[in-house]
């Protein structure tokens, strides 16, 4: 029992904590072994030829090349030069540190994973109803005037799903994204949806885009069959481009989407035998590897797995213990990137979100359980002045399990920034023997650690 406020996952769903611990431990190990922390990491990556990779807990990592992504981060950051800068700084008595952090970035939750909260014996009882799966739906339709509408199941809040779905459908149907109306309202009373539908767990990039592409393809197949019958041309010879369905190599032989749609809607008796009337296709995409947990609690809790590698250089002001981030490089493998601007927006937002938790934000209580951070005056959300310059690079290993090879990208640096900062600051203070074991690091707390260390060495 506690009178403290309940908490819930908010971006990274506790991976910020997970990787803080793991990545700090890797650095502590490197310290113990007197090895470069980059070397220790390289030796422990899953190799590119091991994918899809089965983890001891039942996970199946779809694709990745962790060493290549990591090396790219080191290359972009010019890691060797950062270490040289560090030697120069240390010789001048400055507290300069370099921190690394890597993370497997899972997206899409398999609903089955929630049942590992139940005792396996209970799950083994007859009559127990198992839970599993991760699905998403999309519908694409063309009206009698040839206007295309796409309907999402994800109910986004600014992540750009409408833009991406328009791109995907436009690509499949050979039209422009601006010609597509995307509907993102969700009403479970009237729409196709599933238990796992929604926007969370970075699932849109992976299962959402797959559903949209499959729905568009279903509709495209229908359009081609229809055009094939009308033009008396074999289906393989037809293609969609610039709002038309044309015979390959004979651009003048074809129909516009508007003409095709008009015929399909107004003259349903003219459709090929066996073809369902109406120009609409719904696809519900689900991952095959989304089973419920086994008797040993093994479960593939996510369905696509990206990778993040980060390098951060910081300097700690000896007098004020203020931390200045001098360099922040982040490399992301999120499979095929469909919209680079949107991807970058998620990366920037995620990184600052993670830094917020590492340096400023705290749900603090006093000894009596009294909440101390009940307003934005005390709960410090980073503002534009706090955001460091961030260099972003990508490395794509397409997922074999999604329709377009895309993975999710929403959590981003919220997972890795806390670890990167903690490692960088610990590295900066290594000559004083100060290690970061707790977040957030505030100047006041850091100063106390410095004071204690300096008193200890006198």
């Amino acid at each position, binding site marked *: 029992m506690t009178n403290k406020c309940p908490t819930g996952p908010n971006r990274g769903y506790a991976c910020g904590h997970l990787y803080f611990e793991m990545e700090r431990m890797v650095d502590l190990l490197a310290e113990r072994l007197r090895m470069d922390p980059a070397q220790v990491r390289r030796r422990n990556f899953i190799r590119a030829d091991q994918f899809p990779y089965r983890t001891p807990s039942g996970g199946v990592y779809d694709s990745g090349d962790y060493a290549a992504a990591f090396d790219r981060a080191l290359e972009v950051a010019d890691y060797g030069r950062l270490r040289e800068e560090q030697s120069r700084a240390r010789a001048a008595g400055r507290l300069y540190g370099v921190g690394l952090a890597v993370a497997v970035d899972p997206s899409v939750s398999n609903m089955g994973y929630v049942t590992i909260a139940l005792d396996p014996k209970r799950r083994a009882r007859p009559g127990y109803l198992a839970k599993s799966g991760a699905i998403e739906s999309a519908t694409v339709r063309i009206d009698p005037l040839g206007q295309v509408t796409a309907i999402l199941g994800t109910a986004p809040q*600014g992540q*750009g799903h409408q833009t991406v779905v328009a791109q995907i459908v436009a690509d499949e149907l050979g039209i422009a994204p601006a010609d597509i109306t995307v509907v993102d309202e969700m009403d479970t009373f009237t729409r196709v949806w599933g238990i796992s539908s929604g926007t969370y767990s970075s699932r849109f990039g992976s299962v959402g885009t797959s559903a949209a592409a499959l729905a568009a393809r279903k509709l495209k197949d229908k359009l081609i069959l229809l055009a094939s019958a009308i033009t008396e041309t074999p289906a393989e010879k037809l293609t969609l481009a610039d709002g038309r369905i044309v015979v390959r190599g004979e651009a003048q032989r074809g129909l516009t989407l508007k003409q095709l749609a008009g015929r399909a809607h107004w003259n349903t008796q003219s459709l090929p035998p066996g073809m369902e009337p109406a120009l609409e296709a719904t696809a519900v995409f689900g991952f095959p590897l989304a089973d419920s947990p086994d008797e040993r609690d093994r479960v593939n809790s996510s369905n696509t797995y990206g990778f993040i590698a980060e390098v951060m250089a910081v300097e700690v002001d000896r007098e004020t213990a203020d931390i200045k981030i001098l360099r922040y490089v982040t490399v992301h493998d999120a499979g095929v990137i469909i919209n680079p601007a949107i991807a*970058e*927006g998620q990366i920037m*937002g995620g990184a600052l*979100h993670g830094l917020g938790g590492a340096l400023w934000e705290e749900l603090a209580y006093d000894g009596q359980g009294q909440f101390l951070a009940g307003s*934005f005056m005390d709960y410090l959300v980073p*503002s534009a*002045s*706090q955001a460091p310059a961030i260099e972003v690079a990508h490395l794509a290993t397409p997922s074999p399990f999604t329709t377009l090879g895309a993975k999710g990208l929403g959590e981003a640096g919220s997972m890795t920034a806390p670890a990167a900062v903690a490692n960088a600051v610990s590295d900066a203070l290594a000559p004083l023997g100060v290690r970061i074991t707790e977040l957030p690091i505030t100047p006041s707390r850091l100063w106390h650690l410095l004071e204690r260390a300096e008193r200890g060495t006198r």
Partner: protein
Amino acid sequence: MPEPQRIRLTVNGQPHEGSAEPRRLLVDFLREDLALTGTHVGCEHGICGACTILFNGEAVRSCLMLAVQADGAELMTVEGLARGGELHILQLAFREHHALQCGFCTPGMLMAAYDFLRVNPRPTEDEVREALSAVLCRCTGYQGIVRAVMAAARRMSAADE
């Protein structure tokens, strides 16, 4: 119980009339009485900046003003940025540079930036960041917003020359 007071004001060039109890906040009056829901309520204690509007030409936090204080005033809200269906240069820049995701802070960002660029038409990036720290954003990490304001500043000062 204090009586509602009559309020006459101009918002985005249009005259409006209403009445409100003295304790009614300006942001609530704009949103609920005038149906101008572009201005957002984020924190109600003057930190998040989502409620930022122009009051007699200068940016203010409308959650820290009383509606009755706007009697006789000229206000501009985010709805007043576009003219004749044409988006303002700032709005175009925000769209171009992916400066919004959920859009909750966006009205505040736009109005704070608008005021700031009138005071400092040729800012450095650091100056833009300092000015934008008046409004909190969780989605974007501010990168796109800073780019958008810098781009808008360049276009706006070029247009003035």
